[in-house]
């Protein structure tokens, strides 16, 4: 039995951490606080050059085909360092949709460009408030033309590829490939909680739409979300880890009543509880990584568990990180709110805890 990352992935993790720590020193994301979300294109190109974007893309399509275990590790580090790049939208959603449901021609057309970083992807499922589900999809494709509206669509800015969930004339839901530059699409930037990842609303008026032939019916979309849930869980575990490190480091340096606040049990027990939550979420995510990598039958159950645990752990860590910092943590200048905002964003992005609990119970009942 081996229930840890392989030596190769562990070695790669050290390189990833060194690169991101160097490239994203504390405060590097602050530019977005003032100027609004924007993609760091140079960073994206560097990530592509290091092969990080093609880990799950087969060699024939320009990737390295190393597999999902490496992507899970990378997702955790992205969660910890908060790089302002469309990592999740491009890799967990757009690339996964193409890999799972695309035709050979679609894969050949798009996967090499995702792997080399020349195109980023976006994914449009939500149509306003509500959890993921077939009932919430009203966007319609008739005779190859999409009409309807989607919001929020994360990371749409600069995306060269948009995957949209819509139904056909017969009412069957599926996934469609859209060129975001095609005529007939209007977009409006939305104010978002997350300051480093922008979201848009999009209106489609007879926009050319090409079906992903394998994505037929809600179960196909649910399977895509299962896969993304594992990857988002790693991102949340990384975020929880980083927020805990921030809180611990601050508590060691901050003195009150003549001693570091880290020596007080009120603080120690709070941070111990965060550690426990993050580690349990990590263990659930590991099971998800195994199921994802092996494409195992347990994936829906593993993904739901990983997602539920990760939502709770990251939100706990982000919330209590601010609390540990006291008044300082409530200022715009402190970085605490970056995790607080990100944790809330990730908590809902492919459906919230309630949705994933139902997904879990569907599996347990089966």
């Amino acid at each position, binding site marked *: *039995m*081996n*229930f*840890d*990352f*392989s030596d190769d992935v562990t070695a790669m993790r050290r390189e990833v951490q060194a690169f991101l720590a160097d490239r994203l020193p504390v405060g590097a994301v602050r530019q977005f606080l003032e100027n609004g979300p924007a993609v760091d294109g140079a960073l994206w190109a560097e990530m592509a050059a290091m092969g990080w974007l093609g880990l799950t893309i087969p060699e024939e399509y320009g990737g390295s085909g190393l597999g999902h*275990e490496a992507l899970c590790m990378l997702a955790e580090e992205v969660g910890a360092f908060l790089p302002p790049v469309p990592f999740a939208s491009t890799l967990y959603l757009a690339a996964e949709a193409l890999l799972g449901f695309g035709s050979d021609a679609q894969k050949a057309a798009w996967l090499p460009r995702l792997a080399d970083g020349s195109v980023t992807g976006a994914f449009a499922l939500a149509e306003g408030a509500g959890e993921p589900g077939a009932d919430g999809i009203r966007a319609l494709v008739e005779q190859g033309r999409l009409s309807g509206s989607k919001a929020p669509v994360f990371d749409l800015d600069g995306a060269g590829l948009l995957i949209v969930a819509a139904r056909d004339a017969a009412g069957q839901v599926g996934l469609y490939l859209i060129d975001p530059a095609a005529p007939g699409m209007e977009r409006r930037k939305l104010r978002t909680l997350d300051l480093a990842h922008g979201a848009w609303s999009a209106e489609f008026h007879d926009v050319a739409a090409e079906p992903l032939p394998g994505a037929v019916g809600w179960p196909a979309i649910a399977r895509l979300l299962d896969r993304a849930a594992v990857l988002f869980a790693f991102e949340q575990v990384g975020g929880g880890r980083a927020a*805990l490190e921030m809180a*611990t480091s601050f*508590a*060691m340096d901050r003195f009150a009543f003549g*001693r*570091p606040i*880290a*020596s*007080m*049990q009120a*603080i*120690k*027990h709070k*941070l*111990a*509880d965060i*550690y*426990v939550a993050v*580690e*349990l*979420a990590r*263990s*659930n995510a*590991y*099971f998800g*990584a*195994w199921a994802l*990598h092996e494409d195992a039958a347990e994936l829906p159950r593993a993904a739901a*568990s990983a997602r*539920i*645990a990760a939502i*709770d752990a990251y939100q706990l860590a982000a919330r209590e990180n601010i609390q540990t910092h006291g008044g300082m943590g409530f200022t715009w200048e402190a970085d605490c709110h970056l995790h607080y905002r990100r944790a809330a964003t990730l908590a809902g992005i492919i459906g919230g805890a*309630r949705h994933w*609990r*139902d997904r*879990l*119970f569907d599996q*347990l*009942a089966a």
Partner: protein
Amino acid sequence: MDFNDTPEEAAFRAEVRAFLDAHAPLKSAEARTYRSRELNAEDVRLSRQWQATKAAAGFAGIHWPRKYGGRDGTQMQAAIFAAEEERYVVPPSVFNQGVGMALPTIMTHGTDALIDRYARPALFGEEVWCQLFSEPAAGSDLAGLRTRAVRDGADWVINGQKVWTSNAHFSQFGMLVARTDPTVPKHAGLTFFILDMATPGIEVRRLKQISGTANFCEVFLTDVRIPDHHRLGGVGDGWKVALTMLANERFTVGKAEGPDVEDILALARTLTIDGRPAIDDACVREKIARWYVQSEGLKYTRLRTQTAFSRGRAPGPENSIGKLVSATKLQEIAAYGIELLGQAGAVMDTEVAPLNAWFQEALLYAPGKRIAGGTDEILRNIIAERVLKMPGEMRADKDVPFNQIPTSRR
């Protein structure tokens, strides 16, 4: 990542299964019930017999050195055996304190003569050990213990009281920590002894718990004489030796036994709320999903620990997660099982209460699980101090001679 045994592990597992198949029946589905009860003389006899059978076959003390009756095996093999044994109906073990804790401590701190004398009889089920640590005034603050040991010729004379001692009423030996010097700060004045429980002056009384059973004892020590060659470690080194033992304890005390998420799930499937299955209720789902995710998290955390073993790394203090999470989960699941039963929840009659009243039984013994072997609070301190490297709480008794430490409100 994979769940597959290596060829060596698979061969060992097959050997273990062949042994277990030959000696014990597999647990049936109904085996998921349990009544918290006291071990009787017959239980102890069967426990000794099973220990002897395992030792004779080389499945006790798997990672002990061969010269002490062990197998020179790996921690991974020990974990494989434990996981397999859990699938079979075997007698309750009375050897956790001896084989799991006392003897590893003697092997670390004892003379060859002591190891030779005590290792095999413990391993082969002939001698049962108990742990004489906690006292009425020394629980989490174990180093504050007051049982005195005074040197008298070749002996030490012991006076004091111990409590929360499992198995004391049928143990042959005890691991005792006593205060040999009250004039120095508390950790520096302790010494560790091996106590023959047949020595005159020892009185063992059963201690009845809130669950109504008596799984623990109080041990009163009056002018009990221990020969100096039964001292383990130097005079004043008792705390260091005790820490070795406690590290082994946290390793043996893993998860809290009791109704778990599959039992509350099964209950929710059989009950209805407003005419619909309870399991379809969103509030029920919210509760159960939380415990499900915790159970899964603990399960895979154990596998991560086993992986560390198989790569030759020792388990760290992060092992404290298991007991901390599972004890509270047990208490919550027990309470929720009772809540789901509604008006009949308070009934312990096994004809009415499902699973032999396991939820009700567990409600009564769960508080003990959150205290024994390190309280929730101590475990959080351990995680904070040893994993997160946070400093210790400020101590009012630091560097103060033990006999000048305040002990009550004045």
